[in-house]
C-alpha cells in the first residue's frame, strides 16, 4: 500500500517479523476458524512461541519490555494481514494491572510464566449483566474470611475464559451503599481458574463473530487473600490505569482493519469491470475510499499521539480514548465502503470482507462503548457537567 507513514518505516522490523507469522495463517485459515467458531490455537501458539504476546512484559520478568507504541504495531499488523488479534490481544495487556499494582512477590511468581506462555492470563471479568457500562455498580461480592475471600456473583462477556489459566476479576469488597466515594470499594483479584474448578461455571455465549466469550456464574469461590492485587477497595483505580493501554492497542487493531479493508477494496475496484471500465473509475466508488483512507490516517495520528504520551509516562486519557473512538469509526467506515465496493461479492464468505466486517464492528461497542468515550471527553476535556 502506498502512503506509508514514518511509523510504518520505523517499525518495519516488527511489521515484517509479525507479517511473516501471519502469512503462515492466510485467509483460508481465518475463514475456517470463523466458520467452525473455533479458537485459532495454532496462530496463538505461533505468536506466543515467538514471544510477541510478552512484548509489554519488562525484560527482568522474561518479556521484551517494549512500549505500547511498538506493541500496538504487532496487533495492527495482525489485523492488516486479515487476522483477528482479539483471540489473544488480552494476553498482552491484562497483565498490566499485575505489573503496575501487584507485589514484587506476585510479579516474580506469575510474570515470567505469563511471558513464556506457560500461563495464559487473558480473561478479565469486569462487566456484569446488571451493571453494563456502569462499572462502579457491579454486584459480584468478595467477602473476607481469614486468609481467604469468598466470592459470589455473576459476570458476562468474560472473553477467553476457557482459553485462560488465570483470570483477573473485579469484585466488590464494600457494599455500594456504605461508600462515600463510589469509585472505591472494588478490588482486583488474580483467580487461578484450575483451582477454582466448579466454583466458576462458564456458559459460552454464541455471537455474530468468532469470539470466545462467556457468562460466568461464581458460587462460593475461595480466593487466597494473597491473590488480592494492590490494596483492597482500590480496584476501580487499578483497572482505569490499564484502560489507556487497552484503548491504544484496540485503536491500532482498528487501524490495521481499516487498512486491510481499503487495500482489498482498492484492489477490487481496479479489477472489477462493469459498464466496460474498472468500477474504481467512478467517483461514487473512489471518493468514499479516499475519505475512508483520510479518516484512517487521521485516526492513526491520534493513535500515535496517545502511544507516545503513554510511553513517555505522561497522562493520556483523552488521547487514548479519542484514538479508540476515531480508529473504531474509521475501521467501521472502511468496512462499509469495502462491502459497498465489492457489491454482492462482499457477502460471499470467500472474499473475507463479511467476516472482517462483522469482526471490526465490535470495536465501537467494546471494550468500551463510543458513547461513553464521548461522555468522558465532554466531561473531562470540555468541562461539561457529568451526564450520567
Amino acid at each position, binding site marked *: 500500500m502506498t502512503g506509508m507513514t514514518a511509523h510504518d518505516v520505523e517499525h518495519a*522490523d*516488527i511489521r515484517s*517479523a509479525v507479517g*511473516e*507469522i501471519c502469512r503462515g495463517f492466510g485467509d483460508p485459515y481465518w475463514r475456517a476458524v470463523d466458520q467452525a467458531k473455533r479458537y485459532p490455537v495454532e496462530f496463538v501458539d*505461533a505468536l506466543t*512461541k*515467538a*514471544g*510477541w504476546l*510478552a*512484548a509489554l512484559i519488562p525484560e527482568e520478568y522474561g518479556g*521484551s519490555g*517494549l512500549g505500547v507504541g511498538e506493541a500496538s504495531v504487532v496487533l495492527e499488523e495482525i489485523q492488516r494481514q486479515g487476522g483477528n488479534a482479539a483471540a489473544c490481544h488480552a494476553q498482552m495487556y491484562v497483565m498490566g494491572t499485575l505489573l503496575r499494582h501487584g507485589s514484587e512477590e506476585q510479579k516474580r511468581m506469575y510474570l515470567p510464566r505469563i511471558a513464556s506462555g506457560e500461563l495464559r492470563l487473558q480473561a478479565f471479568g469486569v462487566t456484569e449483566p446488571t451493571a453494563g457500562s456502569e462499572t462502579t455498580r457491579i454486584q459480584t461480592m468478595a467477602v473476607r474470611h481469614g486468609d481467604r475471600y469468598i466470592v459470589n456473583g455473576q459476570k458476562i462477556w468474560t472473553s477467553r475464559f476457557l482459553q485462560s489459566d488465570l483470570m483477573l476479576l473485579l469484585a466488590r469488597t464494600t457494599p455500594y451503599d456504605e461508600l462515600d466515594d463510589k469509585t472505591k470499594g472494588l478490588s482486583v483479584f488474580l483467580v487461578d481458574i484450575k483451582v477454582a474448578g466448579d466454583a466458576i461455571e462458564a456458559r459460552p455465549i454464541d455471537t455474530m463473530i468468532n469470539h470466545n466469550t462467556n457468562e460466568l456464574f461464581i458460587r462460593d469461590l475461595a480466593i487466597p487473600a494473597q491473590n488480592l492485587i494492590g490494596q483492597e477497595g482500590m480496584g476501580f483505580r487499578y483497572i482505569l490505569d490499564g484502560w489507556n493501554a487497552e484503548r491504544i492497542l484496540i485503536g491500532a487493531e482498528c487501524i490495521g482493519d481499516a487498512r486491510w479493508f481499503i487495500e482489498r477494496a482498492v484492489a477490487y475496484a481496479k479489477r472489477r469491470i462493469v459498464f466496460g471500465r474498472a468500477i474504481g473509475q467512478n467517483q461514487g466508488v473512489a471518493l468514499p475510499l479516499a475519505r475512508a483512507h483520510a479518516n484512517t490516517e487521521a485516526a492513526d495520528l491520534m493513535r500515535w499521539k496517545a502511544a507516545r504520551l503513554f510511553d513517555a509516562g505522561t497522562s493520556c486519557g483523552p488521547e487514548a480514548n479519542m484514538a479508540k473512538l476515531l480508529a473504531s469509526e474509521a475501521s467501521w467506515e472502511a468496512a462499509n465502503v469495502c462491502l459497498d465496493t465489492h457489491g454482492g461479492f462482499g457477502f460471499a464468505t470467500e472474499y473475507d470482507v463479511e467476516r472482517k466486517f462483522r469482526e471490526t464492528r465490535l470495536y465501537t461497542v467494546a471494550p468500551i462503548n463510543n458513547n461513553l468515550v464521548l461522555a468522558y471527553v465532554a466531561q473531562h476535556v470540555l468541562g461539561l457537567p457529568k451526564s450520567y
Partner: protein
Amino acid sequence: MKLLVCVKQVPDSTVRVKVAGDQKAIVPEGVTWAISPYDEYAIELALEHKDANPGTTVGVITVGPPRARDALRQALAMGCDDATLVTGADVETLGGLATARALAKVVDEVTPDLVLCGKQASDDDQGFVGQALAETLGWPHVAIVTKFVASDGGTEIWKEVEGGHEVWKASGPAVLTVQKSQKDPRYPSLPGIMKAKKKEIPEKDLASLGADLGGPSVEIRAMEPPPARKAGRVMKDGDPKALAAELAKLLRDEARVL
C-alpha cells in the same frame, strides 16, 4: 560444537521478478529479499542442535552485497550467535567457485566443527557452492541432509534417500548440504529480534581475504521470463455428467493428454 551456516540472500519466493533491460540480471527495485529457503532449513537444523546441546554456537556467514546484512540480521533473530558479512566490489557477479573459495578462507579462520549450507539456492538452483566449499577445504561432504547428531568421536549424519535415509558418519569436520526437513524453520522471536538489533555484524573485505577469485566461472548470456501461461478454464455450471463428458473430450482432443 561450533557450527557455521552459509546463507545466501535471494529474492523472496513470493516476489514476481522482472528481467532487466540488458537481459543479464533481474530488476532489483521492488524486490523483497530473504534467506534462501534451504539455507533456512540449515539454520533450523543448527539451532535445533543448539537447543539440545547448550554448549553449541551457531555462526552464520554470507558473501554478498551490503543488503545481505538483513539476511544475517534475520538469522541472528532466529537465534544464531554471530554473523559475518563478506562483501566488496563485484560481489554480486561473483561465481560459485569464487564464492566457495572466499567462504573457505573464513572457515579456515573460524575453524567450525561442521559447516552447513542449503542444498541449493532458490535463485539459480545451481547446488554448487556447498560441494565446491568442501572440495576447496579438502573436507568430506554429505548432501541432502535432514538431521545430524554428535556421536562418539564424530557426527552421525542422516542423508535422505528414496523411501528412507542413510546414516553416514564423519569423524572430523565436514560440510553438509541441507534438505528441507519435517520441521519448518522457526520464526524470528521478539527477544531474538531485540538481541539481534544490538549485535555487531563484522564485515570482511572480499578482496583482502586472499582467496583466488579467478578460475572458471559462469557467464549469463541472456535471461528471459518464461512464456505467459494461457488462462485456465473453469467448468462449473451444468449437469455433472455432461461436464465430465465435455472434460474428457477436451482432455483428449484439445489438451491431448488422454
